[in-house]
């Protein structure tokens, strides 16, 4: 089982990218589980036909003593197993602790042993702001961390922080930082800008995902590009990204 965490600045397109990777991997024959780790709980909606699924914390809120595995794991496009960690009441509670609780519940219910996914994708909110949002990169969870970024300064700044957080855990032998996914925003000389930043941050550009209206069109249908426009150049981009990620994670590159 390969466990991969996708981090990046809020609004950079993590969920879109992650869902397309999940859809592409499932088309490539992998059994995939995608876990949304964002209190907004909108990570998997494009794998679920645009529908929101109940979150782990929703179910715990309803009845903490009697949550079953099929209350929180839903099958989406291509058999992708979809989970949303969820969050506390907006403005109250602790979102980071919520992520930890959701992860503990998944483990308690033996989610990984029951479904035996080949690949688990953790789609994680914005930045590694506290212990809770670092959970996916801790021992036993993700093995590899990829960061979604554009050539915009704030996005690169966030990428640098995330890479640093991963490196901070170096003495604990946790997940390793495995490169960035450049989700283009049509910034001038975008690849060069990102490459220059990576000279300082470290790591490589895994793939460049061009900006394309098909992404929005697919989202309007509640789908990934891979599902809505198979055979399109954009779908091929995501498939290539998925293949490269697997190569990196299996030591092929």
């Amino acid at each position, binding site marked *: 089982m390969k466990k991969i965490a996708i981090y990046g600045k809020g609004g950079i397109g993590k969920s879109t990218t992650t869902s397309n990777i999940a859809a592409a991997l499932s088309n490539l024959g992998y059994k995939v589980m995608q876990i949304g780790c964002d209190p907004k709980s909108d990570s998997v909606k494009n794998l679920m036909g645009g529908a929101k699924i109940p979150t782990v914390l929703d179910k715990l809120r309803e009845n903490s003593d009697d949550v079953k595995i099929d209350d929180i794991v839903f099958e989406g496009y291509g058999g992708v197993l979809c989970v949303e960690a969820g969050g506390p009441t907006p403005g109250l509670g*602790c979102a*980071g*602790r919520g992520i*930890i609780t959701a992860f503990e519940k998944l483990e308690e219910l033996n989610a990984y042993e029951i479904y035996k996914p080949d690949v688990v994708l953790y789609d994680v909110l914005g930045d590694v702001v*506290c*212990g*809770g949002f*670092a*959970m996916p990169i*801790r*021992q036993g969870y993700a093995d590899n961390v990829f960061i979604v970024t554009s050539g915009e300064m704030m996005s690169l700044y966030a990428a640098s922080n995330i890479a640093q957080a991963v490196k901070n*855990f170096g*003495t*604990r*032998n*946790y997940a390793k930082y495995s490169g960035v996914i450049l989700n283009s925003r049509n910034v001038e000389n975008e690849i060069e800008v990102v490459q220059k930043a990576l000279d300082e941050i470290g790591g490589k550009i895994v793939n460049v995902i061009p900006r394309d209206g098909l992404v929005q069109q697919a989202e309007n249908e509640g789908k990934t590009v891979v599902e809505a426009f198979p055979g399109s150049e954009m779908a091929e981009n995501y498939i290539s990204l998925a293949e490269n990620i697997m190569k990196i994670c299996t030591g092929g590159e």
Partner: protein
Amino acid sequence: MSKLCINLPPFAPDYSGAASALFDLGGIIVIHDASGCTGNYTGFDEPRWFGADSKVFCSGIRYMDAILGLDDSFIEKIKKAAKSLNPNFIAVLGSPVPMVIGTDFEGIAKELETITGIPAIGIPTTGLNYYGKGICDATIKLMDKFIKDEEFIKEPNSINILGTTPLDFYINENDKDFKELFVKNGINVLSTYYMGLTIDDMKKSVSASLNVVVSQSGIGPAEYMKERFSIPYVVVTPLCDGSLAVKKVKKALLGKFEEYVPSTENANTIILGEQIISNSIREYLNKELGYGNIVVGTLFDFSKSQMAEGDIVIKNEFELRKILNSGKYEKVIADPMAKQIIKDKNVKFYGFPHVALSSKVHWNETKRLMNDEMKDFLISLKEG
């Protein structure tokens, strides 16, 4: 507010259980807390603390440590202590504040081990679970750390005793009585988890033919050892002359595991306490004294597999109050602190202290389970 305790004191939590399990093993035990939790353990849940030289420390976490996630200063303090004390291992235990901020105990332990070269384990206790879970989690972490996967030569006719901590048995020789009973009956005792246990004993314990679980906190470790080392287990607390326990253990050593199913229908007697000790008292009363129809109720951790039909898991004092005043029970065996909850003066109460509940208020009265006094106590219950 249903969990509010009005008459009963706070119950022994998971960090007390974990620390109690590790107490005799020669390690540094650090509870990551502001000091109240460590104080609770050393002051109220650990009778061995007074006069012992075990190395139990408090991290003294403060407001800014929590907000800023200052793991480094925590690690630095432990590193300094480890340097001067040269312990067998380092154990870092959690409490409510680290639980809320998601402190990474396994990661901290890994860093400590790398820096100091001393084996380290992280146990993410929270203070929100009971002591049994802490004992169980500590055992599994220790075994994962110190016992490597290799071929073990099974030693015939040998046992480990699992589940002795002062939280259930106090320090009045109950653990030694258990060991002596089995040795006297020709059974080799390789280790007693945990009172007097050493790391070497623990390593030897994987050669045992059988585990004997004497309290609920031993069930999880027994399950773990069954899966990892193929050691079966039997559940019984020796009482009085110990003959029931010896019979059960000898049969189990021959591969015969018998299930005892007590009748609880129309029960007019309730035993409230640690699940396995209570079950064993019930079995003794049934089989040796012919006194039956008893239910067992527990306020602490319980194993479903050890519950008879009609047994009760009591979630809080409110539920306990309802049960004890339901008019169903004429006789109650429980920690002396439960007596004040009973309103009906005709109910006969038999005090049976449980350190995890009443702590130092009654721990001097804890019964030595294998002597005539215990037998007299049980006879008086039957005849009373």
